[in-house]
């Protein structure tokens, strides 16, 4: 259920008004969008409020004609040589034992949160195999498509966007191997660009992205603009708490080596209070929040009330004044 953390709201408001200023940020200017001004490990995900996702896949830079904005449905449009070349990389993104193992482990848990909230939001039958049938859903920062594909299998009409062209290629190739996911529309673009195109979706989902963007408030406003009135927005990220520092940065990056060092920068992490306020300012009222709990013994993630490390939030886009969200 919704965790309202009233005492810290004011503080959080202040924090989100001056996004990352006081927190010892290594970024000189929150509005900065040039990749070259960012610390090296950030260049990969650069661009202000860009919808990029977790670490990029390893080797071989793409060659041949760049495949931007793609109607993903036609596998026929694939160049077989490209397919063969990227299949190997796609296997890394999609290797559940590989570098993205933690995401794969976490995926069912975050999907079950999304499934149950969206079923309630859109009054869908939770016992249906395809409860999201007919819903237009966008996965902002789709990476290799490990969230987009399950959403498509649940029946949603999915658009996946990512700022990293390589990710989009991999996602596109992987999805083409299953008829149910081949219809996902993958596109190398950013949330802002889609807003400019006046695109809207029934549900906007952006997992593990907001901690990588330059300006979380602007990012929230873009997500809001993409959400149709009364539509749903789902965001997950890592809390800026000591526990999160210990678990997600020291643990996952330095000790377990799950993630490349530098994947997460503590000062850029967003607390639940800040997220609630940022979304509120973007006309999205957060209805529900849950934490993720990792049990190292069973190696399984589960949902809990504890939002001190990883957490996920679901909100409803207010129906009034949808145009006022982007200023």
């Amino acid at each position, binding site marked *: 259920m919704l965790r309202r953390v009233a005492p810290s709201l004011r503080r959080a408001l202040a924090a989100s008004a001056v996004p990352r200023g006081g927190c010892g940020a290594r970024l000189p200017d929150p509005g900065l969008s040039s990749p070259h001004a960012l610390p090296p490990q950030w260049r990969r995900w650069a661009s202000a409020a860009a919808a990029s996702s977790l670490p990029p896949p390893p080797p071989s830079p793409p060659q041949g004609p760049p495949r931007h904005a793609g109607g993903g449905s036609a596998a026929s449009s694939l160049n*077989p*040589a490209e397919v*063969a070349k990227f299949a190997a990389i796609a296997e890394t993104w999609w290797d559940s034992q590989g570098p993205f193992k933690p995401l794969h482990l976490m995926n*069912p848990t975050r999907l079950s949160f999304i*499934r149950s909230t969206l079923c309630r939001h859109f009054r869908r039958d939770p016992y249906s*195999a395809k409860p999201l049938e007919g819903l237009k859903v966008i996965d902002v920062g789709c990476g290799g498509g490990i969230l987009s*594909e399950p959403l*498509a299998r649940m029946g949603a009409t999915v658009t996946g966007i990512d700022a990293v062209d390589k990710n989009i290629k991999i996602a596109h190739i992987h999805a*083409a*191997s299953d008829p149910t996911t081949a219809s996902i529309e993958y596109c190398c673009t950013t949330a802002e660009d889609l807003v400019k195109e006046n695109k809207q979706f029934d549900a906007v989902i952006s997992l593990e992205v907001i901690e990588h963007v330059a300006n979380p408030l602007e990012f929230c406003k873009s997500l809001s603009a993409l959400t149709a009135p009364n539509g749903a927005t789902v965001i997950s990220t890592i809390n800026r708490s000591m526990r999160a520092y210990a678990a997600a940065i020291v643990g996952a990056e330095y000790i377990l080596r799950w993630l490349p060092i530098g994947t997460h920068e503590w000062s850029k992490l967003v607390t639940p209070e800040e997220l609630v306020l940022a979304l509120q300012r973007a006309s999205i009222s957060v209805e529900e929040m849950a934490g993720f709990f990792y049990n190292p013994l069973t190696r399984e993630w589960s949902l809990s009330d504890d939002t001190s490390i990883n957490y996920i939030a679901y909100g409803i886009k207010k129906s009034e004044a949808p145009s006022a969200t982007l200023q």
Partner: protein
Amino acid sequence: MTPTPARASAAAAHALLRRTRCFAAANQIRTASRAFSSAPAGASEPQVHFLSANQKVAGDDELDVAIVGGGMVGLAVACALSNMPLTKHLRVAVIDSNPALKSMNYLKKDGIPDSRVSTVTPATISFFRDIGAWEHILQQRHAFFGKMQVWDYTGLGYTRYNARDVSKEYLGCVVENKVLCNSLLLRLQEQKEDIGKMVYPTRLVSLAFPSKSRNVGVAGLKPPSTEAEELCRSNLVKLDLSDGQTLYSKLVVGADGSKSNVRQIAGIKTTGWSYPQSAIICTVEHTAANDCAWQRFLPSGPIALLPIGDNFSNIVWTMSPEEASRHKSMSSEDFVMSVNRALDFGYGPHPNSSSLDHYVERLFSDFGGTAASTKECFEVPPRAIGLISERMAFPLSLMHSHDYVSKRLALVGDAAHTVHPLAGQGVNLGFGDAAALAKVISEGVSVGADIGDLSLLNRYETDRKAANIAMAAVLDGFQKMYSVDFGPLNVLRAAAFHGAQYISPLKKNIISYAMGDSKSPLFS
């Protein structure tokens, strides 16, 4: 590969078919306690094709789940999937050439029971209830039993279990294997309007799992649509069948017995050993109905007398292979005498209140309230008056597969593990597998997972491996304990029996474990 070359290789497949037949005929003995009672599967060409290859429309050869082996456990997987809201839409196929998969009527209750039976536990019964198949069992022959007596030939110990001890109505139910299969088929028929489309009355010739680096068709040789189709199929398991058909599936379930073809093709290794023992099974008749399961440990192995309704009982008698062949060939009169001797005074005296009993009772009386049946006296099982079936003998072995799953593959039942049949646990473990696999698939569907995904299937393996290994170890330990006739060990064994008889919490736990309720008899 496209269907065309597959069809072209039908002749080659036919040659293979012959070989598989021999293999299947040989397997017939091994699966004696499992399979249908009908004629050997390899006896004749399958007469009726439910669906011939050319009737199929495009895309019909793509499945979600292909179950190889239509025995009890394979059918249970199919039935469980068709009964859950999230999995009932899945395209499921059962590949098995056994003609018994075509019979869809209740088996007569008044005939002579088949000697291939299973003792199903309350856990299995509740699984069958959940999937809607138990009511069909109740329409056919079955025998609940509420009492069980276990004793050994040294005359030092015995223990009696009563369903009352655990506040249950029964301890288990003995059902013919063909009734279990039939009930699952009948339930499937209720669920799927055309079960004929689900059952492929043919054999698996070869399996090809998707390679890591996907093969992509050579550019420009094929029209784009074919290429897309091929890309999709390259991600699925390809199954070539003996009738020339080719199927593609997201997940293959190996339910094809202890010598699983699927497991061998997938290259999954096993650990195991043969016991220097065979089991003889047959049906005998009494003058009155038997309502108790009896098991006596003899120097050569246990003999079990299980009620199977009316005045009939089923015999499962473990002995050395030489003894087994002798008992198989002796006259039926001699065999009945031998059975009665083995269940009565043969090999040693009846257990009675001995001095040991006295001490043990004193020793354990401090452990709190004793179970009601600890006061029950030893009874002599009802005598058999005649042998009414053939005697079948099959060798015993313990086998455990190193992995239950790999990408797009899951093994269930005997394909994953075989245990000593002495407590009738084998098939219950198999049904446990079926229930767990179906549940994991359903969870996968709910979060939009690819149902052949290894990280999903790993959850099934984690769930089942511990349970199956524990049971196999317990049964193997039992078997080892009784295969040695050594004085001090006999006393220990007897003490163990007494322990089981007098420490009620332990006894309750043992019953619960045997009933499939709890994880371990010692720590629950």
